[in-house]
């Protein structure tokens, strides 16, 4: 069981801010493939990974990051704070 969070336009495209999933995905990339296969709105949100950033358990990482033991994954566009 893992929480998946979406922010900014990723949240808007997928249509929800957070969901709980059960997955055997070994890496973030595997999880993205699994979600993209689900529904068109996921496939669209994940269509260009270079426009996305990912955090695993609230730490920025990349799409090769392993998911073993992970409780929270978040997808969002490049940040625009400040």
């Amino acid at each position: 069981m893992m929480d998946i969070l979406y922010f900014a336009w990723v949240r808007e495209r997928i249509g929800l801010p957070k969901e709980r999933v059960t997955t055997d995905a070994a890496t973030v990339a595997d999880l993205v493939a699994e979600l993209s296969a689900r529904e068109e709105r996921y496939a669209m949100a994940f269509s260009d990974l270079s426009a996305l950033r990912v955090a695993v358990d609230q730490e920025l990482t990349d799409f090769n990051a392993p998911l073993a033991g992970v409780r929270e994954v978040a997808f969002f566009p490049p940040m625009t704070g400040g």
Partner: protein
Amino acid sequence: MRIVVQDAPFDLGVESEAFAAGRHDMGAIVTFTGVVRDTADDLDVMEIEHYPGMTEKALTAIAEEAMQRWNLGDVLVIHRYGRLVPGDRIMMVATASPHRRDAFEAADFLMDYLKSRAPFWKKEHGKGGTDWVAAKDEDEDALSRW
């Protein structure tokens, strides 16, 4: 070190004064304040979304890195989220150091990292419609300075 993430406004004057107060060992204090800008007179609302939990962690990590890299007595970071209007202050950082170069560089560093590594996203609501602010290449490039 103090990290604040809030939707409420902050008082720049009160925060600056409080940050500087009572330090006899710090000769240099730098503050940076970010203001919602409306150059073309077409922005109604700037909406700031963030990632509760990660935001505080990311800002704390950036501030701790600054404390390690420069000779600093203190660091303050305040960042708002929610709905802001032109003229509102979005955020501020402050650094205190014995020396002016450290205070300047650390504040500059904090801003560069906060722009591209803290989980905030801006959405503009204006006469031209509603749009997420795109990250700028120059902001990402700025990180290579450090």
